[in-house]
């Protein structure tokens, strides 16, 4: 089941979703077994930004129907901290490293890509475009025109394979994928989490079923997540992810990394069937950190002659 992505040769098609596996923490928790039985064919870092971020205040998690709403807020040490402190540890993983970055302007992104480009420990780059544009406020990834422009502007900053991680919160994800391809992306990945919301279950309801609209709006109920809104992942999004991955795979000729709600080899197989080259596992790793290997083995067993 070995597979190739933009020149990277991988043992199998299963990687982790960015931000859903911390290999450094996992080494502390599981020891050498982590490296010996590393569950992914490549390791995708969490999203790195230029300057460090603390992330959102807690609570950061809400358990939804067969899914998880998170509002983590991309905590990270910032580019420099990542390069100096995380990279040496990640470089010793038994698999290639894909570094995920995010910036709110083309300049920021170019700097992130440019610095990473100098480090041969990094095999490929993933660009998270679910980031509000500082000028428009809209996520860069939602508008195909803007997306193509940004990708084209930052593309020269690295010669490493560049994967653009699309946002699913858009009108036509196939068009966004085409924009990324036109801008020079070597691959696209999807889906990121879907915008979702949770209210504090303990807060008393404050809307009044009154004829006037204003009353209800005056007193907005307490949001559960410290960050306000959140993003939905896990089993609940699987059918949506399959549709988006299929739409993208039939829209572009660059490879596609598909993800969203994958729990079993069957789910991974379906994403491959609609045209994904690799499959990423996110939330399901929370339920079992070795599920990546189990899925990879399941795929191999099913495709054995």
């Amino acid at each position, binding site marked *: 089941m070995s597979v190739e992505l933009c020149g990277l040769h991988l043992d199998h098609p299963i990687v982790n979703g960015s931000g859903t596996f911390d290999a450094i*923490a996992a080494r502390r928790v599981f020891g050498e077994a982590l490296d010996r039985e590393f569950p992914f064919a490549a390791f995708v870092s969490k999203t790195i930004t230029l300057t460090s971020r603390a992330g959102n205040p807690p609570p950061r998690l809400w358990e939804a129907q067969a899914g998880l709403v998170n509002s*983590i807020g991309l905590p990270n040490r910032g580019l420099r901290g990542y390069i100096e402190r995380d990279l040496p540890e990640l470089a010793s993983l038994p698999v290639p490293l894909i570094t995920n970055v995010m910036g709110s302007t083309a300049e920021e992104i170019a700097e992130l890509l440019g610095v990473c480009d100098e480090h041969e420990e990094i095999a490929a780059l993933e660009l998270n475009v679910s980031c509000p544009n500082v000028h428009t406020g809209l996520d860069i990834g939602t508008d195909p025109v803007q997306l193509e422009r940004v990708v084209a502007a930052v593309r020269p900053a690295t010669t490493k394979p560049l994967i653009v991680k699309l946002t699913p919160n858009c009108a036509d994800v196939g068009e966004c994928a085409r924009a990324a391809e036109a801008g020079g992306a070597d691959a696209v990945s999807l889906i990121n989490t879907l915008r979702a919301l949770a209210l504090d279950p303990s807060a008393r309801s404050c809307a009044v079923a009154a004829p006037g609209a204003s009353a209800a709006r005056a007193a907005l109920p307490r949001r559960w997540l410290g960050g306000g809104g959140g993003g939905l992942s896990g089993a609940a999004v699987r059918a949506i992810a399959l549709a988006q991955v299929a739409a993208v795979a039939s829209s572009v000729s660059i490879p596609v990394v598909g993800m969203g709600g994958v729990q079993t080899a069957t789910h991974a197989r379906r994403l491959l069937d609609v045209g994904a080259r690799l499959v990423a596992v996110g939330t399901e790793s*929370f*339920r079992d950190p070795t599920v990546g290997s189990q899925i990879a083995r399941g795929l191999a067993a099913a495709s054995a002659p």
Partner: protein
Amino acid sequence: MSVGKSSSARRAPIPRGEYPKAPFGRRLLTVAGNEVLGAYRVLKAADPKGPEPGAGQFAMLAGAERWGAGEDERPYLPRAFSYTRWRDGEAHFMLEDVGPGTHRLCELREGDGLWLLGPLGQGFASPEYGRRALLVGGGVGIAPLAIWQDTLDAAGAAGANATVLLGFRDRAHAEGAALLGEARLATDDGSVGHHGWVTDLLGEELDRDEDATVYACGPPPMLEAVRAQCAARGIPAQLALEAGMACGFGACFGCVVPARSGYLRVCVDGPVVDALELERV
């Protein structure tokens, strides 16, 4: 200052940061028992392949069946529970039924399957030289204190025969105290022991003898009171924190609490933290 406990030579102190590592991957255990303990339950599962946990460590648990079920299709993710005891390859957990996940675990019967990932996190560490151990628990938060008491007694360290102060809502909950040895009790309704907070007892106890290291686990307001009292007196305290968790092994960054140094992940930087790390609980 009277030292009520014999502070015999310390054997096998348990330093911070050296806890057993978890086998990689969750493992399927068989439930060996599920007993009522007042308002709580004690779930026992045979864990022949599991390493003996350190006191204060926890595990992520999920029922092998019907996890993903219920009115709201919850529980979906595993839930965190402190080891409350370890007996010859059998892990014990103390449960309070507060929602769909704990409810489901409370329903498990002997022979049922239980997924376990663990032991996880940083546990308790031995008292500083010359200090006695003082265990303070509130509600289901007494769970990790039982295994810590076992450890201290077995090690015969300064903490052996530690003083134990436990607080509960009412009589039914106070029955949980049976998990630990002799203890002073407080209840919110005065039905058993001191009518008031366990932190009142802590104040008395520290007035009597300040040479202690405090080990506390319980609801946030209790932990904050413990932290504040200990801080005011300059007494070391180790607090076992809680937070909503998705993974338990540092993957999701969901379980953070604010600390002086920034956010801590309770699952890997805790659950037991030095009280000095926190501005407040």
